[in-house]
């Protein structure tokens, strides 16, 4: 394989030129027709299908990713998304009629679905195909020109994308900009019709502050610590399997990886046993065997994770093997972790799973609410009341019961965070919507003034009362009490 760590970064002039070219293409209406958009989407699907072996190699180089994980979570998923957009775009882009209104239907009110313009997406290293090309599909389906700034931390995959996209897609409408901080800074100085940033909260603040100067709307897909609340009465064997799977995929480097577990103290050991049993089933020859378990993306993150583990005051129940050269950390369960432990200080983004013992579910809920709103909240329980209690008393991007990660695969569910975990939704039609401007429109015939002429001055009492009768409403009976129990409901009693 060619030396993929030496990516050729774009120059600042090239960045400006790309921005200008794409703006021109947008103005010229290159992606206005649905047919044109479908061609690009189809080409993207072939790009992946034709090169899947090269992608698998690149993933192995960047992340030590097992081939099945790559196929299932990235290549498969993205081709599937292309097909969904290809089949759906005509319907998605169709102008909608506004709901019927007796007063206004003669003006033919409609909502047009229009592209926003030239959009920018900045994607991370951990799912360098799905998070890079997924937004591209939705943006193109919506008719936008698209610039992708993929992560320099996954150089093999990003380099491959940069090589293949110009061969399959029209360079007048889609461009890849390779770079690191200076290149990204330049990109952020320019005005975009929309920016999608996927990554960390720290950098998201920089992106938003830059975008504020050009009033560019930004959507952010961030992360945080996604808690797992375990009901001790649940089917623990299945739960352990699904939690371990979620944690081990991509060696835990997933924004919705189950970050830490909350469980009553007396059930902690049972949970550890179930997790260990699953671990042994998954890796009969051990997780360090080549090709069965992922690696940490780079040495800086390896050292970060090792540092968190070394400083932890919890007890390692199993795992804890590390190898710096190989950027390998084995799946590691740490028990008796307290709220102020090093492992609870930041999003882990690695294969370490702390267990925080609590008294009961109320304490678990309070623990979650004392921290930033997570991207996903996981609950393992077959008891409807237990699930309802946890979900109803917390706030999170998504609320998932009895599995991990799979909600991202459901076509029709919006994926997005809240508070520090982000804002804006994507995947499939939601990505199309993200990059679409709803342009309201109406068309007012002359005769409408036979009724609406009352709007014109001179303003008379007669006109006022006519308009009131046309547009006015009758209130329901007066409320007797406010919710807070007071009788004071305002004047007019």
């Amino acid at each position, binding site marked *: 394989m060619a030396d993929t760590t030496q990516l050729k970064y774009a120059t600042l002039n090239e960045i400006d030129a790309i921005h200008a070219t794409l703006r021109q293409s947008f*103005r010229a*209406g290159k992606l206005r027709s649905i047919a044109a958009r479908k061609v690009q989407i189809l080409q993207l*699907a072939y790009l992946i299908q034709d090169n899947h072996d090269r992608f698998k190699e690149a993933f192995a180089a960047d992340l030590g990713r097992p*081939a*099945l994980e790559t196929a299932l979570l990235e290549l*498969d*998923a993205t*081709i599937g998304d292309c097909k969904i957009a*290809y089949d759906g775009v005509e319907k998605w882009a169709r102008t909608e009629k*506004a*709901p019927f*209104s007796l007063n*206004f239907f003669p*003006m033919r*009110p409609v*909502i*047009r679905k229009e592209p926003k*313009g030239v959009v920018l997406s900045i994607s991370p290293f951990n799912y360098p195909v799905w998070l890079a090309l997924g937004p591209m599909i939705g943006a193109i389906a919506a008719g936008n020109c698209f610039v992708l700034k993929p992560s320099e931390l996954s150089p093999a995959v990003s380099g491959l994308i940069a090589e293949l996209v110009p061969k399959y897609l029209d360079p007048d409408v889609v461009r890849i900009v390779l770079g690191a901080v200076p290149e990204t800074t330049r990109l952020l100085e320019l005005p975009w*019709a929309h920016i999608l940033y996927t990554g960390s909260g720290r950098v998201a603040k920089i992106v*938003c*502050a830059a975008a*504020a100067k050009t*009033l560019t709307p930004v959507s952010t897909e961030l992360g945080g610590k996604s808690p797992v609340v375990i009901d001790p009465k649940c089917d623990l064997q299945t739960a352990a399997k699904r939690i371990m*799977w979620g944690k081990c995929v991509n060696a835990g480097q997933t924004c919705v990886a189950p970050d830490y577990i909350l469980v009553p103290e007396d059930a902690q050991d049972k949970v550890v046993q179930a997790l260990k049993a699953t671990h042994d089933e998954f890796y009969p020859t051990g997780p360090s065997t080549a090709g*069965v378990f992922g690696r940490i993306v780079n040495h800086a993150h390896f050292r970060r994770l090792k540092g968190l583990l070394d400083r932890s005051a919890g007890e390692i129940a199993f795992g804890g093997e590390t190898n710096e050269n190989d950027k390998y950390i084995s799946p590691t369960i740490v028990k008796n972790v307290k709220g102020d432990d090093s492992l609870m200080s930041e999003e882990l983004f690695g294969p370490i799973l702390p267990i925080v013992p609590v008294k009961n579910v109320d304490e678990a809920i309070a623990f979650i609410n004392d921290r930033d709103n997570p991207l996903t909240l996981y609950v393992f329980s077959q008891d409807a009341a237990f*699930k309802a209690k946890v*979900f109803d008393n917390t706030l999170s*991007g998504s*609320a998932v*019961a*009895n599995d991990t990660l799979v*909600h991202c695969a*459901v076509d*029709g*569910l919006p994926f997005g965070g*809240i*508070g520090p975990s982000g804002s*804006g*939704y994507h995947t499939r039609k939601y990505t199309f919507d993200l990059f679409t*401007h*709803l*342009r*309201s*429109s*109406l*068309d007012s*015939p002359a005769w*409408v003034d036979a009724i609406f002429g009352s709007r*014109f*001055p001179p303003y008379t009492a007669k006109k*006022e009362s006519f308009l*009131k009768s046309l*547009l*006015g*409403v009758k*209130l329901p009976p007066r*409320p007797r009490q406010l*919710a807070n129990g007071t009788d*004071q409901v305002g*004047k007019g009693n």
Partner: protein
Amino acid sequence: MSDILTYTPVEEIPKIRDDLRATFRTGVTRSLEWRKRQLYQLARMAQNEAEAVCDAMTRDFGKPRFEVIVAELSAVIRVALKSAEKLEEWARPELPDVPDSQKNWKPTIYKVPKGTALIISPWNFPVTLTLQPLVGAIAAGCCAVLKPSENVPHFSELLAKLVSQYLDTSAYRVVNGAVPEITKVLELQWDHIFYTGNGRVARIVTTAAAKHLTPCSLELGGKSPVVVDAAYDMELAAKRILWGKCNNAGQICVAPDYILVPRQKQDELVRGFEKAYRTFFPNGALDDADYGGIVNDFHFKRLSTMLDRSQGEKVGGAFEGRRDPARRRLEPVIVKGVDGNDSLLEEEIFGPLLPIVVVDSLDDAIDFINARPHPLVLYAFTEDPNVKERLINETQSGSIVFNDTFQHLAVAELPFSGIGESGYGYQFLRYTFEAFTHLRSSVDIPKSEESRLSLRYPPHKPEAYQVLGSALNIRIPE
């Protein structure tokens, strides 16, 4: 601080935010019945206090009573009641249609309130622009702080009083003040900021919001062009345009800002304006109660200077263009033959001045529009489907309205927003509800799915690749 408006002490502002957060945490806003009651109270407030509101607006800048009742109070009442009526439907969890293999996963989209919101509103349509976003926030189950404009001190003082009387103050509060107070407000973390105003302040708001990753809705403005097609009825166009311009003396974000008309039709259009003006204001607008004043001295001066600097030809005749600085009254003025560099084209006018730019073709009109920031609304008077098609395809704007001015605002079922410099984030009815709502996706996977799902677990068998990696063999169309 003014004599009329009581500013909220800066030290109290964080406590107000914290109180609202604590209320939100109790879950009291979750109940749809509770939200409906607040919405009815809001409607009741607008209905019962109509006279007091009209009076405050008259004192603030002579806004005509008719406009306050028809365009503001009525709209708020309708929207509050419609939202209460539709609330169950909007708040209902959605069950998306999914492939068979996922049907047992109980895929659900829950509509949850984002939390505690901040609503910052301007002076020009203070009732609508404060209370319509509030309707959405209440419907969504959020708590909210309102920060109305200090440029309408009578209104904002009244609002603080009325909100504390009609709404639950543990969930809804008003913060009044000027720069120090709004600076304090913006230092704090909010779960959503809904800002209506101008692009300069919008940058300040979004920069502050960036520090907390707070999502924003920006309802801004800009210069909304009016394209007039030679074949259209000039008199009708003139009537509808002039009405749009005279409303609130042109101080509205979607006011028709400037006109683009074919050279040979300019004079006919001007005659249409004169005819309409005489019908609207038989004695001229200066002392007519149906015509409003300019909000304050600063804006009165800004408009006067803009007009005096213009190199265009001021239309005379019925348009006397009288001014009264003491009462801040400025009659509508039409200016012909304005070119692209004129003072009247430098910034959003936001006043009763109407420049006419002559063009020689539709291409010229489109180029003129595209050389400038995306407008909040593009108006076009034409029956020609080709002209409509070209304008739709070759320009961008928040909304596009044919053959009238701002009637689209009345169609509450249409999403309203800008694009580019004119803003982002939609509002009205369901769209306002959505601005303050988080879509919380959910699945619940039963054990019985294990047989289907276990292929994903390591060790990965070859058949697992076949089943799970099957998209790599999907038949892609040619």
